């Protein structure tokens, strides 16, 4: 007994060896930069040298920085515009395309196709759609004798326009995740419901929705984390304009660090973003707690 338990203990340490390549890269490229970033946020530091410890002064400065607060507001707004629409649209698409017809298979590919585009291609396509001067939508407006809308240069429209682009771009993965969750429900359960005279609504409410709920929570959290980090679309399409109306946090951090060389301050802003995303990633747990008994059966 004693021998075997000692063997198991040693084998446990031996097993760690297999995880070591991953762990070392993880520590080197993620943990160390994170800690270095936190340290940096406590300094007044210039991109070209010169560090000076100032404790939390950068953080205090952030809360009085109108540009930062505007970027924070933009990011929150952007997440608020994209994530609920993404989740709902992807869920509706998954529900309507969850059948074994050729048309459904074709449509699944069509929806997923936009996800393979790089952000550069994405912005080139959408610039040609949105620009008021010769864009696709402006043509349509001319045909209908309407004034073309300056989607990307009007403060009111720029963030919603970026949200539309992003939803179009990111719809594929959530839809696939929802589809795979839907396919976990055996067909016989729906047949049992048909024999139980269930209406389409009660089938959705009592069978389909509980089955996809874990996927919904996962997708919502994942998309929140992702959309808080939006960068390419505003950087390439609007450069944050007009008047900073489309400048999200990551673009703000980028400009502060690499245009103004103020990397200590940019690091502090990065920690704020990190904290924000961390809070959002707790959403699944909060969601699980709220869904409570609903999910207990599923995890069993």
């Amino acid at each position: 007994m004693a021998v075997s338990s000692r063997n198991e203990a040693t084998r446990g340490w031996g097993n760690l060896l297999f995880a070591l390549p991953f762990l070392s890269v993880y520590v080197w490229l993620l943990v160390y930069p994170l800690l270095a970033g936190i340290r940096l946020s406590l300094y007044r530091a210039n991109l070209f040298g010169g560090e000076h410890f100032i404790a939390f002064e950068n953080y205090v400065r952030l809360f009085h920085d109108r540009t930062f607060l505007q970027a924070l507001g933009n990011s929150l707004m952007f997440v608020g515009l994209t994530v609920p629409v993404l989740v709902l649209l992807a869920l509706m698409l998954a529900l309507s395309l969850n059948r074994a017809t050729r048309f459904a298979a074709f449509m699944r590919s069509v929806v997923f196709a936009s996800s393979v585009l790089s952000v550069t291609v994405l912005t080139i396509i959408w610039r040609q759609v949105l620009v008021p001067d010769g864009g696709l939508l402006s043509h349509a407006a001319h045909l209908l004798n309407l004034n073309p809308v300056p989607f990307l240069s009007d403060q009111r429209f720029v963030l919603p326009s970026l949200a539309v682009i992003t939803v179009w771009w990111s719809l594929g993965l959530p839809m696939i995740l929802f589809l795979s969750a839907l396919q976990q429900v055996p067909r016989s359960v729906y047949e049992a419901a048909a024999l139980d005279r269930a209406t389409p609504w009660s089938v959705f409410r009592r069978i389909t929705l509980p089955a996809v709920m874990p996927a919904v929570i996962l997708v919502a959290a994942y998309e929140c984390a992702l959309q808080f980090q939006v960068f390419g679309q505003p950087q390439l399409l609007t450069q944050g304009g007009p008047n900073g109306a489309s400048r999200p946090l990551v673009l703000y951090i980028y400009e502060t660090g690499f245009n103004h060389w103020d990397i200590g301050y940019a690091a502090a802003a990065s920690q704020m973003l990190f904290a924000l995303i961390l809070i959002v990633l707790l959403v699944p747990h909060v969601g699980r707690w709220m869904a409570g008994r609903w999910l207990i059966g599923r995890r069993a």
Partner: protein
Amino acid sequence: MAAAGDKMGNSPKNQVTENQGLEFRAVAKAFDGNRVFDDLNLTIGKGEFFIILGPSGCGKTTLLRLIAGLEAVDGGEIFLNGRAIQNTEAGDRGVAMVFQDYALYPHMTVAENLAFGLRNMGVPAAEIATRIGDTARSLSIDAFLDKRPGKLSGGQQQRVALARALVKKPDILLMDEPLSSLDPALRLKTRRELAALGRNLSATVVMVTHDQVEAMTLATRIMIMHDHVIQQIGTPLEIFSRPANLFVAQFVGATPMNLLSGDLAAGEAGTAAFRLGESDIQTQVALRGLPVSTAWRLGLRAEHVALTTPKKPHIPATVDFVERLGEQSWVHVRLTDGSELVATETGVSPHRPGDRVGVQLDGAKAHLFDVDGRAWHPEPA
């Protein structure tokens, strides 16, 4: 006169009037152009425990799904209690079903599973509570009404599935291989409970199975299907003792019926004798009325084959191998012409592979099969 077994769809036990039970009239069904049923006619009496027995892929589950309304008929009519139901929605047919995989709602408790259909039917809350209480007690699932199906064992889930069907008080209860996912000990126990349930239930039960023991022990009548065609409908005893054709004879029984090829000759008192090599086996099948057939086969169950010493007038044979089941043994023997037979011996057989034995065939119990596989039986006593 020698008589064939009960022919398709018109069993003598069929005492169903127009307004009762379940009736199929000229039902047709095809999947992607492949015919499953062409002209299916079937009558099941009210309160019967009717079992559809057949190998996988014979169309028995399709038949059940047509009754439930989970598949649409491509032609013909289905009547339940005198009402044509083939165009009625599944939920409005008065039908409940126990699925092979139980198909319990995973996110509802057992009580909610039972209540779901009743709520959708508009049953008052007070009555729902009473019905669930009664059903849960009678199936001993009241201890876990608050649990989710995922927390239950296979046997418990099976009871819940049954309870969910029974709580609706259906006119007809359908069961699709309800015991197939249980382990053998639990299957035996549940089978006996189902038998007791069947005796107390006023509803018609239609059950599909590929297990002949379930069919023999539970059914009031059995329908045997093969390749989408009804082979025979009859009581378990009829099916066993007077199989309609070769398929039924081989499919039903703990071990398939023994078959020997040979010629017919006139025997004693107008009966047919079966010529097997040098020996004649005297059957009780009347010679008159037998059709002209180019080939005949003699069918004999293993329990009507006895092993003795290898002396005349017994047919000489060699033991191939022995299957010992405990309470009985199946001894596989080979005759000199190469044909194989199985003999049942009670208890543990003393025979060993290679033993020389004599075979004694009980001709009075023998069946004859003509070249088309149709069966001819001794006159009923």
